[in-house]
C-alpha cells in the first residue's frame, strides 16, 4: 500500500489518475471474467466457474483455420512492414534531403486516415487490377497500416545512434555491408524485433482492412465478427477474445522492453509516439 502511495504521489490529481486507469482497464477485464462464467449471457451475479468455453475452442475447425490464417498474415505482414520500416527509418534518421518531411508524412498518413476509406480505396484498386481477394491482399493492406508503427519504433531505436562507430568501422576497412552487419545491426536488433512484434500484434487484431480485402478466408477478428451475430456463441467469443488479449499483452510487453533496451543502447529516450 505504501508502495502504491509512493507511485501515485498525493493529491486529487493522483486520485483522478487512479480512477482513469480503472476506467481504461475495467471494460477489458469483463472479457476474461465472463469467459470463465457458466452462464451464456454476461451478467451479474456470476453463476459459477467453468473452463468449458475454452475447451470448446480447439474443437471448432473454422476457428483453427482462422487462427492459422491470422498467423500467416501476421508473420508475412510484420516481416514486410519491418523491412520497409528499416529502409525508411534509416533514411530518415541518417540522411538529410529535400522532401524528406513530406515523404515521411505520406508514409505515416495511414495512422490518421479513417480506416474504412483506406480499406475501400485499396479494395477498388485491387478489383480494378483484377487481383482476386485473398489473404495476400490482406497482407498488402496490413503492411501499409503497419509501416507507420514500425517506423516509430525503429526511428526511436535508430535516432541518436552514434555515427562515429560506423565511420570507425569504415575507416578500419569494413565494406558498407560489413559495417551494417557487424556494427549497425547488433545495435539496432532489439528495435527490429520490437517492430516485428508490434506489427504482428497490429495485424493479429486488425479488423476493418481484413474485412474488406479478404476473399473467403477469415482471420481471427473476422471470425469473431461472424460469431457476434449469434448470442449463444458469445461465451466462446469471450474466451477467444481473452486469449487474444493475453497474446497482445505479452507481445507488446516484450516489444516495449526490447524497444527500451534499443533506445538505451543508443542513449535515446522516447516512447512509441515520441
Amino acid at each position: 500500500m505504501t508502495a502504491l502511495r509512493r507511485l501515485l504521489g498525493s493529491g486529487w490529481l493522483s486520485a483522478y489518475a487512479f480512477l482513469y486507469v480503472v476506467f481504461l482497464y475495467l471494460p477489458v477485464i469483463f472479457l476474461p471474467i465472463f469467459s470463465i462464467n457458466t452462464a451464456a449471457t454476461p451478467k451479474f451475479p456470476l453463476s459459477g466457474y467453468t473452463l468449458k468455453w475454452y475447451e470448446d475452442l480447439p474443437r471448432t475447425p473454422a476457428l483453427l483455420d482462422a487462427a492459422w490464417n491470422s498467423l500467416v498474415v501476421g508473420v508475412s505482414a510484420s516481416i514486410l512492414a519491418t523491412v520497409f520500416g528499416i529502409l525508411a527509418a534509416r533514411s530518415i534518421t541518417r540522411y538529410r534531403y529535400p522532401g524528406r518531411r513530406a515523404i515521411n508524412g505520406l508514409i505515416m498518413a495511414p495512422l490518421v486516415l479513417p480506416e474504412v476509406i483506406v480499406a475501400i480505396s485499396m479494395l477498388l484498386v485491387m478489383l480494378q487490377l483484377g487481383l482476386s481477394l485473398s489473404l495476400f491482399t490482406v497482407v498488402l493492406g496490413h503492411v501499409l497500416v503497419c509501416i507507420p508503427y514500425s517506423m516509430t519504433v525503429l526511428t526511436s531505436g535508430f535516432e541518436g545512434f552514434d555515427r562515429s562507430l560506423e565511420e570507425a568501422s569504415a575507416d578500419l576497412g569494413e565494406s558498407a555491408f560489413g559495417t551494417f552487419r557487424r556494427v549497425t545491426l547488433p545495435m539496432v536488433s532489439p528495435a527490429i524485433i520490437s517492430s516485428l512484434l508490434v506489427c504482428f500484434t497490429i495485424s493479429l487484431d486488425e479488423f476493418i482492412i481484413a474485412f474488406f480485402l479478404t476473399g473467403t478466408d477469415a482471420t481471427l477478428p473476422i471470425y469473431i465478427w461472424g460469431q457476434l451475430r449469434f448470442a449463444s456463441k458469445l461465451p466462446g467469443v469471450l474466451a477467444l477474445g481473452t486469449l487474444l488479449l493475453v497474446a497482445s499483452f505479452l507481445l507488446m510487453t516484450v516489444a516495449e522492453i526490447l524497444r527500451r533496451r534499443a533506445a538505451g543502447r543508443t542513449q535515446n529516450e522516447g516512447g512509441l509516439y515520441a
Partner: protein
Amino acid sequence: MTAAAEGSPARRMTRARRNALLQSEPVQGFALISPTFLYALILLVLPILVVIAHSFWTQNYLTIDRTFTLENYRIALTEPIYRDLLWRSLYISLMVSFFTVVLAYPIAYFISFHGGRHKSLWLFLITIPFWTSYLLRVMSWKVILGYNGVLNSGLMGLGIIDEPSTALLYNSTAVIITLTHAWAAFAILPIFVSLEKVDRTLVEAAKDLGDGPLRSFLRVTLPLSVPGVISAALIVMIPTVGDYVTPKLVGGKDGVMIANAIQAQFGKASNWPLGAALSVTTMVIVTLIAGAMVLVIRAAQRLAR
C-alpha cells in the same frame, strides 16, 4: 572496376561524376526510402486517386459509365439520409475528441509533472490496453451496456433500478462512450509529449513572480501545451469520423455513421461511385473541420495570454 580502368578518359570522367552523385547524401537517402515511398504511393495515393475518379462516374448496373458527372456529390450533400449521417458522424467525432482531450489532459499533466521516476511505467500502463484488439474493446462495451449486460444486471442487483434499461445501448451516446474509451491513449500521448517540452523554469518564474498554481498553469503551462492539445484532438477526431465497428456494434439505428453508409455502397447497394463520392466528401469535410479546429484552438491560446 576493371571496366572503368579500360574505358576512355571521357567515359571515366562521367562515371566518376555519376559515382559522386550516387554517393551524395540526398541521393543515398532518397534511394533508401524509395521502396517504402513507392509502396505508400501505390497502395495509398493511387487508391485515393482512383476513389476520386470513381466519384465522378456513374454505376450502370454491373458496369461503370465513365462520363463526368457531379450527380453523386449532389446526392451525397443533399439527400437527407446522407446529410444526416455526415452531420451525426461529425457531431460524434467532435464530442469524442472533446471528451478524450478533456479527460486525458489531467493524466498527461500528472504523468509529466508528478510522474517522477515512474513516468515510463505510467505511460506503459496507460497504453497497454490500446494494443489489444479494437474489435474486442468495442465488444466489451456491448457486454457492459447491453440489456442483459453488466451495468443493467449490476444496477438491478444493487436495487437501484427494477427493470433493465434499454437506454444504455444502441444509440449515439453508447457510440460516444465507447469511442472515448477506445481513443483515450491516443490523446494522452501527444499532450504528454508537449507537456514534457514545457520549460520548467518558466513555471518556476511565474511562481516567483507571484502567480498562484492555477494562474501559472493557465498562463504558462496550458498555452505552451497547445500544440499537443491540437494534435490530440486531430488524432482522435479524424479517424473516428470514419469509424465502422463501433456504430455497427453499439450504435443501433440511431448510432449509424457515414462509414456504414459507405460500406453499404461497396457491399449490398453496390453503387461504387456513390460510395466513392461519400468517402471524398467525408475526407474533404474532415480536412476543413481539422483546419478550423486548429484555428479555433490557436485563437483561444492567443486570448488566454
